[in-house]
């Protein structure tokens, strides 16, 4: 089993978001970066599959050098080697193009990533990669097992889920509960330092670009209603907020 796991490096989900340079740049000051939470699930399942079926896990990041701590963490969790495409991941098609180019040269049985990144929330990179490689893609996948050349999956659909089966190779966008997040142990952290991390140059160009950022308007003050008068809330929702 030869698995490629694509990880994003994103601000910790508790980060306070702000912008600089006249709201044209994301303010990285004081931001703690993490492996994309959904990508982390994909990585955990990949490592489990390697442990049970044998094979290799390669981790791929499209990003600048500041993503390397996250790549090393993925190696510490159990990936064997890593590739970083040295460019800011600005656009879904562009990122997918980099992944597809790397993947074309190697014949991966599985290409796993999160259902979406938690910064730009587009959720389309896996589908574009699948199309560019001419390989089936599914998302969001919440269970995955492999038997020989065959994958059994559970995919979340609106208002429920479906079980499906397909032949490898596959590109999958993953989400919980596909696996439990893994925490690297000391031995993993030590060995990760010497595992190979190859840096390659990008090709192609972004099809989208951000002109300006802005924050949502501040929320007005909360209107408190005494608990003993709770029924009053329903009247306010009807006459004042007009949502009932």
């Amino acid at each position, binding site marked *: 089993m030869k698995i490629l796991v694509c990880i994003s490096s994103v601000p910790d989900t508790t980060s306070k978001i702000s912008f600089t340079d006249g709201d044209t740049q994301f303010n990285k000051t004081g931001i703690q970066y993490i492996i994309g939470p959904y990508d982390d699930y994909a990585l955990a399942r990949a490592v489990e599959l390697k442990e049970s079926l044998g094979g290799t896990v390669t981790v791929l990041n499209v990003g600048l050098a500041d993503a390397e701590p996250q790549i090393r963490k993925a190696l510490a969790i159990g990936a064997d080697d890593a590739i970083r495409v040295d460019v800011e991941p600005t656009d879904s098609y562009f990122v997918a193009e980099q992944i597809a180019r790397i993947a074309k040269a190697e014949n991966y049985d599985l290409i796993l990533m999160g259902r979406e990144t938690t910064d*730009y929330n587009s959720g389309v990179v896996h589908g*574009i990669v699948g199309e560019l490689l001419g390989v089936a893609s599914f998302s969001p996948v919440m269970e995955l097992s492999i038997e020989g050349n065959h994958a059994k999956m559970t995919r979340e659909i609106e208002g429920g889920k479906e*079980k499906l089966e397909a032949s490898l190779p596959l590109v999958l966008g993953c989400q919980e509960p596909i696996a439990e997040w893994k925490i690297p142990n000391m031995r993993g952290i030590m060995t990760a330092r010497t595992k190979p991390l190859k840096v390659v140059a990008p090709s192609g160009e972004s099809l989208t670009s951000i002109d300006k950022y802005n924050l949502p308007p501040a929320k007005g003050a909360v209107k408190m209603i005494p608990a003993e008068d709770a029924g009053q*809330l329903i009247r306010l929702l009807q006459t004042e907020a007009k949502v009932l």
Partner: protein
Amino acid sequence: MSVLVYIELAEGSIKKTSFEAIFYASKVAEMTGGSVTALAIGEASAAELGKAGNYGAAKVLHAGDSSLFQSNIIAYSKVLLEAVSKTGAKIIVTAKSSLADAVTARAAGALKAGVVGNVTELPDLSSGFKVKRSIFSGKAFALTQISSDIKVIAIKKNAISTVETSSEAAVESFSISLDASVFDAKVTETVKASGAVSLPEADLVVSGGRGMKGPEHWQPLLDLAEALGAATACSKPVSDLDWRPHHEHVGQTGVKVAPNLYIACGISGAIQHLAGVNSSKVIVVINKDPEAPFFKAADYGIVGDVFDVLPKLTAAVKAL
């Protein structure tokens, strides 16, 4: 410019979010001087599909072959590509959903199209083609330029206010021959979630956290949801503890909802939870802890015991 809107069907009906997408597409067509064609894949009556006209679609292409009744990402993306080629569309609009994302992503890959999701406003055409989209799970917005020839726009639910007319769309059967390989993946079972109202589409949501104290105490929350006709939801700890099913989990790594009303019962309001609900129009928080951070994000708050407050709310709804 010719605009194609990919719409989704649920149980033979056009989804509400798809009407929002049709309306958005019709406004974009108006701005760029073109017409809107809708593409519907799956099972629906001509009368139902004609309703696409109420929101501005001139025509509906209906790929209604029985082989397409079961949603199929690969087959649907092939149908979408055929529709793009038939209509010469330069702009593809859809309502963001996990299926629409998966289908339009593949089409974007084939067309080398820039994709922008969670779009909240009509485009700005003053210089190029820019759309405003929600990013960081609703914590910010980004005005994004799309420079590719063909553009894919996935709109955020409940962000676009629609106007309904009595126009009907002409429905045209759309059949294409699909390679057998697109049906390689087999759906072996479909499990519909219990609960009367589908959470991702719901206008009203009642949600419970650890303050509900255990799965056996959920009845007062379910009673309020039933009285309101609301969907039920829960926080991540609750689904992790298996008190409620995973598909009810809203938050950063769960379902992102954007209802008109979100009522949070016994949820403290961790930032990861807020990421899933911050697009709600009105937020009500009920919590016995007056210091719960969720109150800062709320429009209305009640400090009190949920088991005391919920029955009072249910009674007040029933008295409306």
